[in-house]
Structure formats: C-alpha cells, structure tokens
C-alpha cells in the first residue's frame, strides 16, 4: 500500500513549477483593445481581492472568503471571450468571475460585508455571488454540484435555440467527486453547449491534488473517458486563456458540444480566510509568485507598444474604483430584519402554512 504521507512529510511533496513560455503568445491574433480590456479586468480583480483580504483582516468581511489572488488570468481571459448573454457558473471562489462579467464592485464588496446594498442584499455572502442580469448565474459552495446545473442552463439554451453557452469553473479537487463525472458524461451525451474549466491550482484545501489523484491532469485526463476534447493550458497567461476560451466557446456555440479546459495556476494566498498556506513547498510558492499573471501581462502589453503611462492610468482608475466600492460598502446599511423572511418562495414570502 502506498499512502500519501508515507513517502514524504506533509507539505514536503514534490513541487510543481510554473511553465515558462510566456512570450509565446505575444504574437497571438488578439486585438489590442481586447488586451487592454483584459489588463483592466486583471487589475480590478487583483486590487479588489487585495482589498477584500484587508477587510477580512479588519473583521469587516465576516465568516469566510476565498480569494482568486494569483488566479485572475483565468477569469479575465474567459470573461473577455464570453458573449454578454452567456452563462457563468462559479464556485465559492467566485469574486473574480463575478467582476469578469461586468458586475459593479460596490454591490460585490457590500455583499462580502453583509450590507443591504450587497448584490444579494446580504443573504448570500461571499460564496454565493450571483447576478442574473449579468449572466453570472451563481457561485456554488458544495463541491461539484454546479457542473450539473451548468449543464441545465446549456440544455435550456440549446432547447430555446439562443446560441448561449454556459461556462463552468471549478477546482482541481472537484474532479474527484461523483457529480463531476456525472456532469461530463451528461454534457457529452446531449452535446450541450457548455465549457468546463478546471482552475488547477494544485491544491484542494490543504492537500496537494497530486497526492490523492491517480492521474497527472485531474480534469483533462478524465475528460477523454467521456469523449470530451480537452486542453491543458497556462492559466497564468491571460492570452492563452483567452484563446482557449474563444475556441471552446465557439465550438459549443456552433453546436459541436462541450469541451474541457484545464488551466494551470496557483493561489498566492491560502485556501480561505487567513490561511497562510504553509502546506506548500516554499520554493514552489516563490516560483509561482514570480510567475504572476499581472506583471507578465503588463510586460507583454509594453512589448506590444502600449505606453506605461496608459497602464498606470488604468491601475490608478481601478484603485479609485476599489476605494469607492469600499467606502460605499462600509457606508451601506445593515439588511433590514424583515429581509431575513423574504424570498423563500416566489410569492416573495416565507410562509409554509395558512
């Protein structure tokens, strides 16, 4: 018998280092306007998440929060490739995916703070960000479930003939739960217009995915068993993500069925809250922090001729927006006591008897 912790101490498993082929996408055929748009989104996500962390440490964000720091390129790349009426399904690690769809920062921040001006008036919280009008169909906190739900949205789009595509993000750890496997087969059988996106950040909560998964690529290696095309990509290169996303989404939109993208990435912080992430080899953390999607993307834009000053201006505008969202969120009222009793049912109430 081979046990995960029989051949190495906890946290001392072999490191998985980032790819180092960043310059390869410089020449990709992507509009500069799309690229600066992606850059702005990367900044929004980075600065928003950093602020969310500060507010958590100040105990203004209660409960829990799961940040996408270090993983922004996946949300930004997909966000740029999606049509405005496409559907996003995310996990509890969904702040970035919500911003990616154009949801304004204030209601998102206010939701983290449990305020009445929150995206769901304080009733959902950090793990359940949803904005139907933006196609952000929800953030789901039970591992695996939302892959099956994304299938349903894709089925409905197919049935209604709207050409919409559902894009479903999930982690590496999610590939070991039954719902993942049910969902992939189901999507393949009915050729649903859905794109499954595994954000492989190498860890579930506090355990390395490699220690408890039999194959190297937890999502992509399984996809083939269900007849799903898949690609493993550099999830820290927003252009690589954008290209893979565009191809997968167009394929789905054209009626050619579902596919899977496994994007390699890394979280800069811990799993949630104030987790320091000490279960990761130090040189692995250092290598991935050095392969940070944002400076890498900025360097590319500069190589492609964008003025530093233009990028600085974006950074500054985003900083202003994050400050404003923080102020507006903190100034938000607490939810009204009555709101705890609304919207259990479609009649707006919570009554279960006459």
């Amino acid at each position, binding site marked *: 018998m081979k046990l995960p912790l029989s051949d190495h101490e906890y946290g001392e498993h072999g490191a998985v280092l980032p790819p180092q082929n960043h310059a390869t996408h410089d020449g990709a055929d992507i509009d500069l306007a799309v690229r600066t748009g992606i850059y702005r989104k990367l900044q929004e996500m980075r600065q928003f998440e950093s602020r969310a962390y500060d507010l958590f440490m100040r105990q203004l964000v209660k409960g829990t929060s799961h940040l996408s720091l270090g993983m922004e390129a996946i949300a930004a790349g997909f966000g740029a490739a999606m049509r405005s009426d496409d559907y996003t399904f995310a996990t509890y690690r969904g702040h970035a995916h919500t911003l990616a769809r154009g949801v304004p920062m204030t209601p998102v921040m206010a939701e983290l703070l449990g305020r009445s001006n929150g995206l769901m008036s304080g009733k959902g919280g950090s793990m359940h960000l949803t904005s139907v009008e933006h196609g952000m169909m929800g953030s789901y906190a039970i591992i695996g479930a939302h892959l099956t739900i994304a299938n349903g949205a894709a089925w409905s789009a197919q049935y*209604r003939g709207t050409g919409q595509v559902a894009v479903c993000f999930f982690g590496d750890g999610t590939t070991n739960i039954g719902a993942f496997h049910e969902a992939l087969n189901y999507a393949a059988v009915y050729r649903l217009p859905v794109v499954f996106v595994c954000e492989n950040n190498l860890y579930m909560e506090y355990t390395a995915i490699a220690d408890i998964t039999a194959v190297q690529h937890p999502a992509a290696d399984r996809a083939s068993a269900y007849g799903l095309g898949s690609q493993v990509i550099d999830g820290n290169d927003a252009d690589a993500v954008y290209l893979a996303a565009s191809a997968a989404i167009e394929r789905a939109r054209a009626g050619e069925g579902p596919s899977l993208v496994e994007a390699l990435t890394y979280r800069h912080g811990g799993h949630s809250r104030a987790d320091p992430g000490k279960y990761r080899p130090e040189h692995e953390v250092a290598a991935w922090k050095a392969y940070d999607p944002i400076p890498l993307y900025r360097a590319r834009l500069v190589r492609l001729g964008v003025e530093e000053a233009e990028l600085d201006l974006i950074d500054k505008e985003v900083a202003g927006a994050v400050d404003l969202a923080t102020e507006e969120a903190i100034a938000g009222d607490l939810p009204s006591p009555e709101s705890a009793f609304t919207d*259990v049912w479609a009649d707006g109430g919570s009554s279960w008897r006459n």
Partner: protein
Amino acid sequence: MAQLTYRDAVARGIAQEMRRDERVVLIGEDVAGAGGVFKTTVGLLAEFGPKRVIDTPISEQAILGAAMGAAMTGLRPVAEIMFSDFFAVCWDIVVNEIAKTRYMTDGQVVLPLVIKTGNGGGLRFGAQHSQSIENWAMAVPGLKVVTPSTPEDVVGLMAAAVRSDDPVMFFEHKGLYSSKGEVPDGDIVDSLGTAKIRRPGTDATILALGMMVPRALAAADQLAGRGISAEVIDVRSLVPLDTATILSSLSRTGRLFTVEENPRLLGWGAEIASIAAEEGFWDLDGPIQRITTPHIPLPSADSLEDLVMPSADSVATTVEKALQS
C-alpha cells in the same frame, strides 16, 4: 368523466401541461422510450417528441442539476427520480441548491420545476425501495411538498406543481399506481397547500397522506359500524400545510389522529401534532395520537411489511380504543 388509473393520471397531468406550455419538458431514467419503470409517462414521447421527453443516464445528480439549470434559464422542467429512496444520492442538489438558491440570491433566481418520484411501500420491495421520505423534504425550507392520493388529484396537483414558480416535490405513491378513480374531462388545475376532507365525521379527525388515505377511509367505514363517526382528511400538501382545514376539523371533533407511513421519528404527523397542541389544545378532548410505521427499515416479506405498516384494522382499533378510554 372517465375511470383512470393513478399511473395514467400522472401522464395525463404532465401531458395537459406540456400541451399548454412548450417550456415544460420531462427528463428521467427510462421515462421516454419505456414510458417510465412505473409506466407513469406512457405516451408522452409519442405526443411531444424526443426534444421534450428525454431518457437520461443513471445520474441522479446530473438529472436534478439539469432540471435546476434549465429552470433558472427559462424552462419549466419535470424531472423524475425513479424511487424516492434514490434522493439519498442527489439530496445535495435538492437541499443545498434547488431549495436555497432563490433565497440566497435575494429572489434573482426563479426555479419553476417539479421533481416527481415513486414513494412509499406496500410492494414488497424491501428497505431500499419502499421508503416514505416526504418528511425529509418537509424539513427543508424552500421546497413545496405534495402527495396525491387519487387519480383526479394527481392530474390537478401535477398541473398546479408545473405552474408553480417554486420547486415542488411531487410524491407519487407506488402502492397506488394501479388504483382507479373517476377523473373529470378537460383540464384540471388544483391548488397547492390545500387539504381535502374525504369523509366528514363528528367524533374524531383522522389525517392521512398518500396510500394511508384509502386505509384511513376503510378504517372510518369500520368505525362507522361501531358507532364512531370519523372525519378523514387527506393532507395532500405538507408544504404549504393547510393548518386551517386541520384545526377547524379538530375544533369540531375534539380528537386528532395521524396515519403516517413514515417511520416514527419526526414523521409529518409530529409537526401537525405540535401545531395542534399549541393552537388546538382547548379543542382537544383527549391525547393526540400518531399511528405510524415503527422506527424500523421496512422489511421485504409481505407478511412482515403488512404487519408493520398502518392498516385499516390497526387504525380503526387505535381510534376506537382511544375514544373509549
């Protein structure tokens, strides 16, 4: 008016709604080509075609997730979970996702969907294919829960369930599938959240659900022969619960009995008993009594299954004894 079996009534109810609204679609294991393992969806594929009546893999989570995702984006799906026991493998989708999403999203997400299922015992299927689990669903905020006992109610409550903008758990009783009843012609639309007095009476109120309804009615027949006039109420809907009909009956009869197929602990009757104790206490002329299956898994052998489930005889005996003491 036509005589219809309970199982045919299921298909008729779904067909009625599918004809009216093309957003209504049906998915489940063996529901299309085979017409359902209990033959409750016969004819639907032929009438509505393979785009609207769909056979699925044995993937209960995928089935309910698909229904949910479709409901939140404009369809009105009916999904079948073949035996209600199988909810144990997809309860996450029901409880964590379907039941809570409207609330968590502050009303942004609407989930007009129906989950139909074969529930209950009496068919000698043993402990994993016979459970009465409507009380599991009743315990979860955000789910409407109905259990029809007659073919006419099957049609009308199915229509009401499909038209509801809330998720509805539709518990068909497997033991009633072959039972027959008169069903009026034309469209039938009932309302959720309403109990029905099946037999008026003055001495005792007997509440029953699903297959316990005909048993309670048979018990009332026996009791009538012994000079006891029992009122039998078909609860039909656990959520919303028609407490008005129940408490008003109690105020007239002074005695309350529940006949529950579920195992004893926390069966649906426990909640009603507690409501009656709080709100109908001064109307009571004696203790509330729950008649349930004991707190055991259901045995398979016919002799044992019959022994443990409430029967017309055991209901009549219990009520008679209680009224005499």
